[in-house]
């Protein structure tokens, strides 16, 4: 049971934060290209999902899974996008991502007048609290399942 990595994007596609805890394989492209790829994919899949939905959409795109990992997605009405990759034993990380938004992002960054929003987040406090939170998750372990 583990968490692989986390991305936070703002409404303009800027990657505000990225961290990894248990990533065995890299993408083979630069971090900048990786963020663009991730954001582009999210943008396309959200639009696809809402267009092709056979019913009225409520929350939209939530997650996808492969044979090895699951990608969980949470978007706020302000366009802030949280992406968490975990292994398959984690069913839904929506609560986790909501907690990261409400209790970490909003409390430590939005309410900090020194933190400039819209660019890469550089708050030690945020990084360490987030790290402690992820490591404290019931489904986190240092080794992948």
């Amino acid at each position, binding site marked *: 049971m583990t968490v692989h990595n986390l991305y936070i994007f703002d*409404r*303009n*596609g800027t990657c505000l934060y990225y961290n990894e805890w248990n990533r065995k394989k890299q993408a083979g492209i630069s971090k900048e290209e990786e963020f*663009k790829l991730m*954001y*582009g994919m999210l943008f396309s899949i959200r639009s696809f999902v809402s267009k092709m939905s056979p019913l009225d959409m409520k929350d939209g795109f939530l997650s996808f899974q492969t044979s090895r990992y699951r990608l969980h997605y949470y978007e706020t009405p*302000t*366009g802030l996008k949280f992406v968490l990759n975990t292994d398959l034993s984690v069913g839904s990380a929506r609560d986790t991502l909501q907690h990261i938004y409400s*209790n970490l992002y909003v409390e430590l960054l939005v*309410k900090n007048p020194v933190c400039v929003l819209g660019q890469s987040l550089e708050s030690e406090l945020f990084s360490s609290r987030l790290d402690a939170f992820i490591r404290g998750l019931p489904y986190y372990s240092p080794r992948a399942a």
Partner: protein
Amino acid sequence: MLMFCCCLLQNSELFTLTYGALVTQLCKDYENDEEVNKQLDKMGYNIGVRLIEDFLARSSVGRCQDFRETADVIAKVAFKMYLGITPSVTNWSPAGDEFSLILENNPLVDFVELPDNHSTLIYSNLLCGVLRGALEMVQMAVDVRFAQDTLRGDNVTEIRMKFIKRIEENLPAGDDQEERKMVFY
């Protein structure tokens, strides 16, 4: 949560006095009502773009379906949460794109009287900026202004809000084609 509410009630005077000190200082710095109004709006805007995140985090309100729902959420949830008052939503335009918030009392103006030489000062203009900034972050461009103000002799305080347009989400700067190629290679 209860303790937080108690603190808020005790601090409401501090809040009112702090706001008053802010406006007074701006008047001294700028000496011109129009300029002070603009500064209040700008400060309000900067507060609004952050306040919306706190609001969404604490209220778990999802996306509103239309402007009417937005109006209700602003009046019944947001104003209640931050100022402890619930303005009424009235005077809808026929097109449904404009409405008024009527505030029976305005906590910002407790103890305040406008002197004669500041007749064009919009004392609570910060609120207009806050509403404008907050809604912009949820993809709505709105125009917000005071239509009536008890400080200027009217019976009630009326904030008029008009929906201008939806702000569309764009792909980040850079070649759109390139973005799509990257996604599908």
